[in-house]
């Protein structure tokens, strides 16, 4: 048998090498954002004098903040809407289960399997005819419905873990359904609701199919903004990297902070 310390060191080294390789593109992108355009296309090097020029230039294209604002409004708006619609539903599924509950949950999930591309044409035409095309409202509606099944699903998982007795006690004291949800259920499940909300924000923030197809200039979020760099203009690597870094930084930090809770809700409690 090998020496356990040596073995542990080898395992650690291997894990760190793999972690670095997988993280490398992100690391490189952030680094490139601090280079000049000349340095960005030169041979890879870790030695350079960092500059904020690319950030300044990206910022000067005044529209960056418009796209970012669109992302914020649409991601948080749709998450809030989805939570408002999903909480009563998940509450009733967890605490007032009927024979149909499991079927309903699976059906909701199955609507996620309807490929967006299969229904792109009708949604596009409906949006065109109702004036929702290229509006934040339109995109918010789509994201709400897109995330609703997953939000219901996750909330259901979190609510189900709550001991029934607590809500029973509230009801004994004469609480209405609304009071029960508002004063008992929600405060007790804040972490679960928060992580559900964050996953919904992440999914909306990163969504690209609907945003590329339903928005053009007015309501385009960051996913569309970044995609515009795929044009020849994208050859400005330092600026592209700076803009990309700005686009993903908030969501990356969100993800880091909430990864643990997210998993449990996401997997229907199948993985504890």
């Amino acid at each position, binding site marked *: 048998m090998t020496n356990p310390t040596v073995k542990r060191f080898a395992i650690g080294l291997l894990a760190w090498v793999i972690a670095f390789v997988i993280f490398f593109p992100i690391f490189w992108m952030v680094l490139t954002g601090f280079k000049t355009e000349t340095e960005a296309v030169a041979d890879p090097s870790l030695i350079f004098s960092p500059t904020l020029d690319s950030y300044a230039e990206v910022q000067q294209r005044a529209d960056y903040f418009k796209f970012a604002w669109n992302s914020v409004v649409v991601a948080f708006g749709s998450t809030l809407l989805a939570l408002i619609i999903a909480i009563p539903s998940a509450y009733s599924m967890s605490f007032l289960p009927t024979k149909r509950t499991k079927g309903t949950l699976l059906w909701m999930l199955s*609507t996620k399997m309807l490929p967006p591309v299969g229904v792109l044409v009708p949604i596009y035409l409906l949006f065109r005819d109702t004036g929702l095309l290229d509006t934040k409202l339109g995109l918010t509606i789509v994201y709400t419905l897109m995330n609703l099944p997953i939000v219901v699903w996750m909330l259901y998982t979190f609510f189900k873990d709550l001991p029934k007795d607590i809500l029973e006690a509230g009801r004994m004291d004469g609480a209405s359904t609304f009071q029960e949800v508002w004063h008992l259920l929600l405060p007790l499940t804040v972490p679960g609701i928060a992580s559900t909300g964050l996953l919904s924000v992440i999914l909306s923030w990163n969504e690209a199919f609907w945003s590329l197809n339903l928005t053009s200039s007015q309501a385009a979020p960051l996913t569309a903004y970044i995609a515009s760099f795929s044009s020849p203009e994208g050859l400005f690597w330092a600026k592209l990297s700076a803009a990309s870094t700005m686009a993903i930084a908030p969501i990356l930090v969100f993800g880091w902070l909430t990864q643990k809770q997210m998993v449990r809700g996401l997997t229907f409690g199948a993985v504890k």
Partner: protein
Amino acid sequence: MNKPRAAGRTVGGLRPLALQGPAVTLLFLWMIVPLAMTVWFSFQRYNLLMPGMTGFAGLENYEYLFTDPALWTAMLNTLLLVGWVLVITVVGGTLLAVLFQQEFFGRGIARVLVISPFFVMPTVSALVWKNLMMHPANGVLAWLAGVFGAEPVDWFSSLPMTSIVIIVAWQWLPFALLILLTAMQSLDDDQVEAARMDGAGPVAIFFFITLPHLKRAISVVIMIEMIFLLTVFAEIFVTTSGGPGLATTNLAYLIYIRALLDFDVGMASAGGVVAIILANIVAIFLVRMVAKNLDE
């Protein structure tokens, strides 16, 4: 099939109906309205560039679609992409979960680094890979090839599908790892210890204890990934635009071309119907698997 109801009251049918009503109604509309319209359009002559040409088309759109070699290429590409990414992420994710479960220095930070790509938006990861990593002249991979004295690869022209698979797998491997790592944490140490006492090596422990333990988590990973992988779009849109030729056109991208570039609503809708049918075949199979797993 039906298990006894969960303990507690079973209240009259009205309250659940009122509480679930909004969510169910909205999702139902979200599903059925566009679906009905897609089916309807797929039987119509409807091209936005030719407003005069309208009316019932019968199976014409489908006939064009099915005789169009692009459809079969796109379908095959869709399945190839889903299949390869699933294989890479599930196998890779399982192995990495075992590795990252071990105790080592700075494990927490290493884990955070390794799951990061999951939080990067697809358009960004596609651009970063296309320009910074896989660029044939200035990309990091080309530089690496140079260091080892190899010929740099022009990824998107010579290995287009492989490039897309790499990008998509890079994004989803962390997701599989995240879920499987969490599942690993409930693995019973005593059981592993007992097996080791009985003389089981690491390989035997992996196949007879770890893998069966991860079964449910793996099925969850496969299910969630399939939902998203069947409709991969941004990565293709940003990098290859489906090309060269049709090499990286999947169903999602083909319908996009027909609908928004060719303005052929009828044909695009027929493609949509095919995509929906394909997804449903997958869904039926998946929902069964998940339902079984959830009932334990």
